[in-house]
């Protein structure tokens, strides 16, 4: 193990510890814990949005996806997460501003309860589903930590992810949203610095931008002659194209459309750990420039890690580096695509910068993990228990429920991460499928469509949840009509939730005019 890397990681943990201490001191009430009492400043909010969306998936998963799909998945980088956080602020945060103040909203479930005149049932359904989706998302985060620690430092996968788990549980339990937002501020700066410095160095190591891109087109020949694998292995023939034919999974245009046109941007926009951020900022003026700022910060980060993944693929085809293998259940050995970033970093980055990679991935993982844990804990304690089951529960009782929830969800998701997949992206995309199919219409339909009512919202969540799980159980990730079409398994759930909303909204009564007026429902952002 390397002393410098351990030193950098310890310094990082100490910094997080100090920030968390001040976060804990600031946290006095339930509103502080859940939503920082809506007191986050401009830059804290901007970097919270960037940090919440820049997870282990961005650093490790996007590079892994790009290693496999090259430019054929570029839609993830130009539309996916950057679009989600920018338009979440505009379409949801801006419109919810007045309601937040008027109704003292702390979570999006508060909005559901008011908009759908349903203080218990919808809050419970949404809270439980939200906690479940956060749980699935968490698994991928621990995977990312384990991968980098093992690749760079040789620390066993399970031990490294366990250390990260302990640290993140510690500060989330004590400081709630203040600690989360402030540590994310530091974490986002670290991520931005390391990624923006690493990428030009790696591109330069590959011979420069133009040569790298010309080599991408040579990968089929290179991998055949140097690696002795088929010229079509891992979608090599599509690496330099923006999409492949419709019947190809992952890189085909239909797959790109359903995964990066629906699942990622829409799912992230309404994801519990993102959408609840728009209830935490202090001033409505922040909705003016923050969407542009979050976009211009997020696109280069995700694009950079993607280019690093593409560079790793070219270097692998050239024989300049080897990617570890992963043995799946059933003894099948596959390339561990997620190793792309740490592996190329090890050979291309200068020593000092390489040693910062572990804290950077820790930062990326923890900035999302902490937000997920706060969200899941709030869903159970605030939405399900306090507001739907037992309103008389004391603040002390709520605090304990929060702690237990954080502990249980944290440890169980870490335990499941001990069996990694070749691409952690699949975990994230499955969680986002649940999010889009359960929450997109109840939130967006609730804000912009007057006919949307509680029956439509309740059943949309239930049917969306069940259909999505069934789709994954029946088809796995891909729904393929051979020779015709390959789409991501989000589609049945999206169709089912959309149809449920349309049919129920038309056959049942809308909410009262008074509520629609009070909640500013309608096809506008701001009432004239």
């Amino acid at each position, binding site marked *: 193990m390397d002393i410098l890397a351990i030193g950098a990681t310890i310094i990082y943990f100490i910094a997080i510890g100090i920030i968390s201490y001040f976060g804990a001191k600031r946290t006095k009430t339930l509103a502080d814990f859940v939503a920082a009492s809506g007191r986050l400043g401009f830059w804290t909010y901007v970097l919270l949005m960037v940090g919440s969306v820049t997870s282990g998936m961005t650093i490790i998963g996007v590079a892994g996806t790009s290693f496999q799909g090259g430019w054929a998945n570029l839609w993830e980088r130009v539309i996916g997460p950057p679009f989600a956080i920018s338009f979440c602020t505009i379409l949801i945060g801006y419109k919810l*501003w007045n309601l937040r103040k008027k109704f003292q909203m702390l979570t999006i479930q508060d909005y559901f309860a008011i908009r759908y005149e349903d203080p218990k049932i919808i809050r419970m359904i949404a809270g439980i589903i939200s906690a479940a989706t956060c749980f699935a998302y968490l698994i991928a985060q621990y995977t990312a930590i384990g991968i980098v620690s093992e690749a760079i430092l040789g620390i066993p996968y399970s031990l490294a992810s366990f250390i990260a788990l302990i640290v993140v549980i510690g500060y989330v339990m004590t400081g709630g949203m203040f600690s989360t937002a402030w540590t994310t501020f530091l974490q986002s700066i670290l991520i931005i610095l390391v990624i923006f410095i690493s990428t030009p160095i790696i591109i330069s190591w590959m011979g420069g931008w133009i040569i790298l891109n010309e080599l991408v087109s040579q990968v089929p020949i290179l991998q055949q002659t140097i690696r002795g694998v088929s010229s079509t292995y891992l979608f090599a023939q599509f690496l330099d194209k923006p999409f492949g034919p419709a019947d190809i999974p992952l890189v085909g245009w239909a797959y790109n459309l359903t995964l990066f046109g629906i699942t990622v941007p829409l799912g992230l926009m309404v994801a519990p750990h993102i959408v609840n951020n728009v209830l935490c900022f202090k001033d409505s003026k922040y909705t003016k420039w923050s969407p542009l700022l979050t976009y211009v910060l997020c696109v280069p980060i995700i694009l950079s890690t993607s280019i690093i993944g593409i560079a790793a693929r070219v270097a692998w085809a050239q024989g300049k580096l080897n990617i570890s293998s992963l043995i799946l259940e059933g003894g099948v050995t596959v390339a561990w695509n997620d190793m792309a970033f740490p592996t190329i970093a090890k050979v291309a980055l200068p020593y000092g910068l390489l040693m910062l990679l572990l804290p950077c991935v820790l930062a990326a993982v923890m900035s999302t993990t902490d937000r997920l844990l706060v969200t899941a804990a709030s869903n159970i304690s605030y939405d399900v228990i306090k507001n739907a089951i037992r309103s008389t529960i004391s603040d002390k009782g709520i605090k304990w429920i929060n702690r237990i929830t954080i502990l249980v969800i944290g440890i169980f998701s870490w335990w499941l991460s001990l069996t990694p997949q070749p691409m952690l992206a699949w975990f994230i995309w499955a969680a986002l499928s649940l999010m889009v199919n359960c929450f997109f219409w109840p939130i967006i339909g609730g804000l912009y469509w007057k006919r949307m009512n509680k029956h439509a919202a309740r059943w949309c969540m239930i049917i969306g949840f069940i259909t999505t799980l069934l789709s994954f159980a029946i088809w796995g990730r891909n729904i393929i009509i051979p020779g015709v079409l390959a789409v991501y398994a989000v589609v049945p759930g999206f169709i089912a939730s959309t149809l449920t909303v349309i049919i129920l909204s038309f056959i049942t009564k809308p909410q009262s005019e008074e509520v629609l007026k009070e909640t500013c429902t309608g096809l506008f952002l701001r*009432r004239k």
Partner: protein
Amino acid sequence: MFSILITKLAIKIISSSDRILGMLPITFVCLIIPIIVQILILTLWALKWKSPEKEG
């Protein structure tokens, strides 16, 4: 007007046979155009922004 300009630019780049910065023209267009369009939309949003608080 703007969308016509963007479309014309995209068609011109795609119809070119030369690589752009080492990338296939269609890949370059698919990468760059969505970014430009989104940045323009978000800039316009900021410039035309009005406070939501005027609402009752």
